[in-house]
């Protein structure tokens, strides 16, 4: 496999974590333009743990996941009374606040003769875990894909549970959910927290793969893309966001002739797809119909 293909596939897998985190928020009926914040937090935590403290990757991934989740819970706790447009704006503000704060934090360090640490707009360089552990790009691709598949399996299992069904109910009709004894704010908090964990985990891998991160990487457009992937992929199943990522990064970005016009092509494609499939390619209804056919079972 060429280096280019392996890099592109790794990018698809890495951004899939972000798209899945946006998916989890959409499931409970909220639109977040701020998932890139948790992605950034995961990236910076892993950069700090591995490059500064020389911590193990497992510890770095764990701490990034927890940090992403806690940050998301903080956002959720602050804005739990907001919903719809107001929640979307609050999430965007949160992400921008974080990015602007990262631009201001300068704690440059020198470790083994190399400059590292948070250095404002210059970012965090020399995240050398991948080199120190002799990871080739294909090795990292395998690691990322295995993690992504594990997450997908977990989400697929989760999809058919009562918890997920109730979460979708909260997202669809909050009043009906309450009339059935479901507490919407708890579900919103839990799923936003989970989304932060997923983004944090993805961000951690992103930092390890890129070896250099900077605040500008986690701008608004990253969050908008994550959301767009989920919207065109559909909210019916966790595979939806991955299809969206595959179309944009896997297809459009890899066609070199389109490179200059990628954003235009992607924007046009989103518009066309949403006209043909307003609920996304894997709409909840299509997935439930398919599921009903596959698994006709007792009540």
């Amino acid at each position, binding site marked *: 496999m060429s280096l280019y293909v392996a890099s592109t596939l790794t990018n698809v897998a890495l951004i899939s974590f972000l798209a899945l985190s946006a998916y989890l928020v959409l499931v409970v009926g909220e639109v977040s333009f701020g998932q890139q914040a948790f992605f950034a937090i995961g990236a910076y935590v892993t950069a700090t743990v591995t490059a500064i403290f020389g911590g193990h990757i497992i510890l770095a991934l764990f701490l990034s996941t927890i940090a992403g989740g806690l940050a998301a819970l903080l956002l959720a706790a602050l804005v739990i009374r907001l919903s719809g447009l107001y929640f979307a704006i609050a999430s965007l503000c949160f992400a921008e606040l974080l990015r602007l704060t990262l631009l201001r934090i300068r704690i440059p360090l020198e470790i083994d003769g190399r400059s590292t640490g948070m250095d404002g707009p210059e970012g965090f360089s020399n995240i050398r875990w991948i080199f120190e552990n002799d990871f080739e790009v294909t090795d990292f691709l395998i690691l990322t894909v295995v993690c992504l598949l594990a997450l997908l399996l977990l989400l697929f299992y989760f999809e058919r549970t*009562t918890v997920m*069904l*109730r979460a*979708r*109910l909260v997202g*669809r*009709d909050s*009043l*009906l*959910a*309450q*009339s*059935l*004894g*479901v*507490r*919407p704010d708890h579900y919103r908090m839990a799923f936003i927290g989970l989304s932060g964990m997923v983004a944090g985990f993805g961000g951690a891998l992103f930092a390890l793969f890129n070896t250099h991160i900077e605040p500008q990487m986690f701008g608004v457009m990253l969050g908008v893309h994550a959301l767009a992937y989920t919207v065109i992929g559909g909210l*019916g199943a966790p595979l939806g966001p991955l299809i969206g990522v595959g179309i944009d990064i896997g297809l459009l970005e890899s066609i070199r002739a389109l490179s200059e016009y990628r954003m235009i092509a992607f924007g046009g494609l989103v518009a066309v797809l949403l006209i043909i499939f307003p609920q996304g390619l894997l*709409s*909840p*209804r299509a997935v*439930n*119909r398919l599921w*009903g*056919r596959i698994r*006709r079972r*007792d*009540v």
Partner: protein
Amino acid sequence: MFELRRITKSFGGVHVLDDISIVLKPGDRVGLSGGNGTGKSTLINIATGFLAPSSGQILLDGHSLNDQPPWKYARAGIRRSFQTSRLVPTLTVRDQFRFETCDPARRRQLVAHSALEDVLDLFPFQVPLPVLRKIEVVRALLADPRVLFLDEPSAGLSGEELSAFARFLSRNVSGDAALLIVEHRQDLMRVLVDEIVTLESHVPSVATAGKPAEAVGDA
């Protein structure tokens, strides 16, 4: 025992409910009737936590439920249906019944009694209105409610469908549950309820004659 004690409700200056008291004991079957705008749905919304009363108390076994969110009412066993059928459009009928973690045997029994087996894999938009109404009631019954409020469950049903629906309700609402039903159709009321409470309008009727400007008091 569920009790609405001296409930009043005003929207702005309009008094919709004025000093209403209703007691529902296990097994009670009460019908709520009254013309349009007399506050029937408002009363159900208050009794299920969806609206706060202007004054008065909502009590379950002597404990106040005032200021509690609707999900707490539901968890306490107070369930409702809505005036327009409210189901999740992207879920099949089978999945509409999975919000409750109830005994699967009970679920099977209710589905069998309600003759819903044939529509289990259909989506709400594929199901006729009388069946949708039944699905909503079955969904509420799965929780074994202590008090069940049905808001115009027969709306849109033909005469034949109505009697079938009445038979279904009387067979499946358990003897321990109290039922309060808002209904315009007296034929359903006669079959189903033991007592009818009639709400009367508290909005003063205005009869004016004359030119429009005089009628609105602008002359």
